[in-house]
């Protein structure tokens, strides 16, 4: 029983990372109506930035995390400006192919800069573990921090969207771009802000992910990125609480199947969840059915 509980807790920890990544996916999808394939690779950039600052340059972990957030935010906005903005109004196929190109570009640029060998990432989180039930269950510091940051981010993001002008503008743009423009909302700026927030979240997710699984390579972000998308679809794409629940459920499913079924098949099981969700409830748990007008 205690082993089940510890797998479960690890699953929630991994799921919280997925949830933070999925938030970025879901926001960008809701507002720019595009699947930002490069989102997963921004996680990797965040991890590498922290790695360079803390391990290579020997600065404090806090500086590492902050610079990861700054670098990723700038990168996210730059990608949007250079690659996606010119394609606004083009077919979704070409936007999707461009996003894949950007993702591929980031992966291979990192491969050339940092080499093909896997780096060992020094955890930047120094929180003592919590021991429960006379040592039968230990919750590591990384898990505590990950789950807490996930909750803080969810609250902060919901408040931001519901209480600030920019947040309201985001809702308006996601509802109807044309009408939002007529109401005096700067659509381009709103989309750029969305990308900035999404990328900053990806940077945090990157640091948390690399602290929990202390390896780093150019493809670190690819798999978590895709799984986070699965989480976003599971929760209902475009919905913020949905992304949160989807992420955590997916993390638990992945960890439990790794423990009790097969470690090699856990990815396959996670992706099967995606196919089952699309079969049973294509809008996800909390997604809205969008009526299409001609």
């Amino acid at each position, binding site marked *: 029983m205690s082993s089940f509980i510890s797998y479960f807790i690890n699953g929630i920890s991994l799921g919280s990372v997925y949830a933070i990544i999925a938030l970025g996916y879901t926001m960008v999808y809701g507002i720019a109506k595009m699947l930002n394939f490069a989102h997963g690779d921004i996680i990797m950039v965040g991890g590498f930035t922290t790695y360079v600052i803390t391990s290579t340059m020997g600065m404090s972990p806090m500086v590492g995390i902050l610079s990861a957030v700054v670098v990723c935010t700038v990168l996210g906005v730059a990608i949007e400006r250079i690659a996606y903005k*010119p*394609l*606004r109004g083009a077919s979704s196929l*070409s936007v999707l192919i461009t996003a894949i190109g950007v993702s591929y570009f980031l992966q291979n640029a990192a491969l050339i800069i940092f080499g093909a060998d896997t780096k060992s990432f020094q955890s930047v989180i120094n929180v003592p573990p919590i021991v429960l039930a006379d040592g039968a269950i230990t919750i590591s510091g990384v898990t505590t921090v990950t789950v807490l940051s996930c909750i803080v981010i969810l609250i902060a993001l919901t408040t931001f969207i519901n209480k600030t002008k920019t947040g309201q503008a985001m809702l308006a743009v996601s509802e109807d771009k044309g009408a939002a423009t007529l109401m005096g909302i700067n659509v381009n700026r709103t989309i750029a802000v969305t990308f900035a927030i999404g990328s900053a979240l990806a940077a945090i997710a990157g640091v948390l992910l690399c602290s929990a699984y202390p390896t780093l390579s150019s493809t670190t972000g690819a798999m978590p990125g895709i799984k986070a998308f699965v989480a976003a679809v599971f929760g209902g794409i475009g919905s913020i609480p949905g992304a949160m629940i989807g992420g955590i459920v997916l993390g638990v499913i992945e960890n439990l199947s790794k423990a009790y079924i097969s470690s090699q098949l856990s990815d396959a099981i996670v992706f099967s969840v995606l196919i089952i969700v*699309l*079969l049973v409830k*294509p809008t996800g748990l909390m997604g809205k059915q969008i009526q299409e007008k001609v």
Partner: protein
Amino acid sequence: MKEISKKTKQSLATYILVIAFYAVCEIWLKTGNMSSLMEGLLVPLCYYMILAVSLNIVVGISGELSLGHAGFMCVGAFTGAIFAVTAGANLPELLELVIAIFLGAAVSAVFGFLIGIPVLRLRGDYLAIVTLAFGEIIKNVINAIYLGVDSAGFHISIKDALSLNLAEDGTTIIKGAQGITGLPRNANFTIGIILLLISLFIIQNLINSRQGRAIMAIRDNRIAAESIGLSVSKYKMMAFVISAALAGVAGVLYAHNLSTLQATPKNFGYNMSIMILVFVVLGGIGNIKGSMIAAVILTILPEKLRFLSDYRMLIYAVVLIAMMLFNSAPKAIAFRERLMESINLKRNKNIKEEA
């Protein structure tokens, strides 16, 4: 004599191009001037071209994006390989290959159909992500399973070869991550070209048929196509299944060109699917001839430019982005139109002055 239509002419030009390519390579080979490197590339060229045209059905004609073509190729490859080392082992080489190709195509088509059921009725970019997931699932599953056969039939295990509990006459076919060994290696360039021609024939016929026009109508305007009574999911499914089947054929060809077949990230992973996508995008989305030419160039060029090999994938990425920005960005399209207009104006002026 009956007038040959423009479409027939275009299809004929494609076939002639392939046959000319075949003739040039054969002459080059027979006169003994071809390097062993190039000789080794001949069959790969065929299956890359088949993959490129098969992906072009989904991307170009149906307007969807599949990122799992390597997965369908993997399904075809393993189906063909399992047949080759079991029932096909005692058959004549050519017969074995032909049956393997049909089996590979059929099994890939079934997988395409199963993937298509949940996805193709949805709107949006779900197909891309689901096919990507499918490719990963197939690769993981094949790396995890052990398959053996004995007089009692097939045995499957996800632990190891011993837990298959084979009878004395049994043999292990798939050894987990080690894959399938002892394949016949009976694919050759001529068979590859014949398969390519058959694939082209199927695609050209599809494009010029009633069904093909329906698929393209759905791509261009789904709502309008629906309103005249076309079944969107049926036609999308048709394009997707045909494409999957042809990718399976390419997989069978791939497997029969090797003595050991393994599912590694390199041959059946995401990178492979992206490479096929680069062929299609560089050759022109929807342009069958172009995607074949791109496949040939992008297969031969990296071999000739070895010093650039580290940057190859980076260059592919830039090519994808640049092609999309240049071809699809509304501003770029407007710019091109203005450019063409001004050129036409000048030409008209010159003609007038000459007159």
